């Protein structure tokens, strides 16, 4: 009998009673109303607070969101990363002060695909705001590192919500196919932090596919090529040769007249 896939609807209520949720709630409540700050939650804590409560983590990764346009009226004086770290220290959740601690990161730590911000969900606590990216985006960013615990997160999400299935994940990968294009020169890992010298997304995705879906994935044929074909059909949907035809019409007409 086929296993019934549980319904997965998004956005969903954030689990503020989960271990990560309680800590994050404390942080958001501690931010003064005059310094209301939008935060983005990512990493395992984001999965724990949404689709996979069993995903455990020692740290709650957040970064102060970039405030632009209309949000600058809502958050006129947001806390900087340093100020936010000070608040974390004050409430006793700095690294080394609590079993589950808050790590205030920079925005660049989180490198999701292009769909991320269109499907992120937000919830206000007091005057501040917590934005949580979609689980697929959280999982995708784990692929840069892909340690055993990252695979565990994929398996936990799959076991809980029955997603992402192979087709869905392939579609996700195709939407950010640029990440998978093989560099023409030998890859250097200078853009990745030192703890992840093996952060090769292509290899990591191949390994993930075998573990998760039990088969070898051909990145060129199944991710890059379909994505490029789609782009090609969108960008090159026109006939060529119009200018050459115009030039030949002129040349023909003039040669007739000179005869």
């Amino acid at each position, binding site marked *: 009998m086929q296993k019934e896939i549980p319904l997965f609807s998004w956005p969903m209520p954030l689990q503020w009673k989960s271990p990560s949720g309680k800590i994050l709630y404390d942080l958001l409540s501690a931010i003064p109303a005059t310094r209301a700050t939008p935060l983005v939650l990512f990493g395992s804590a984001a999965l724990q607070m949404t689709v996979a409560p069993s995903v455990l983590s020692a740290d709650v990764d957040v970064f102060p969101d970039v405030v632009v346009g209309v949000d600058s009226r809502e958050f006129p004086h947001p806390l900087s990363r340093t100020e936010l770290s000070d608040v974390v220290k004050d409430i006793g959740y700095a690294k080394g002060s609590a079993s589950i601690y808050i790590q205030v990161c920079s925005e660049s730590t989180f490198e999701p695909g292009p769909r991320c911000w269109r499907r992120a969900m937000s919830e206000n606590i007091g005057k501040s705001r917590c934005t949580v990216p979609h689980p697929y985006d959280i999982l995708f960013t784990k692929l840069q590192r892909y340690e055993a615990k990252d695979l565990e997160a994929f398996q936990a999400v799959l076991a809980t919500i029955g997603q992402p299935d192979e087709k869905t994940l392939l579609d996700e990968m195709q939407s950010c196919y640029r990440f998978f294009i093989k560099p023409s020169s030998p890859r250097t890992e200078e853009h990745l932090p030192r703890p992840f010298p093996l952060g090769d997304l292509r290899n990591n995705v191949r390994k993930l596919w075998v573990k998760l879906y039990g088969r070898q994935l051909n990145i060129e044929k199944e991710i890059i090529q379909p994505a490029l074909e789609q782009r090609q059909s969108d960008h090159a949907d*026109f006939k060529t040769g*119009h*200018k*050459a035809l115009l*030039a030949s019409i002129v040349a023909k*007409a003039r040669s007739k007249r000179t005869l």
Partner: protein
Amino acid sequence: MPLKTSSPIWRKSRLAARLLIKAGQGKTLSEAQLSVASILAQDTEVTDRLIDQAKHSLKGSYAKRNSSL
């Protein structure tokens, strides 16, 4: 100030498309039109992509005009 409804490049592309349509209908282009066609054929701002868009746009506007009659 009046709002610009089309860019110079787009106008040139439409002009190229009109000349192509006219020639395609078997009509003879005047010397002035041939001069313009010659300039447009060498104009790097006018591309095949834009001429193709313009041809479809003109075809669409003719069709719309005829259907409303």
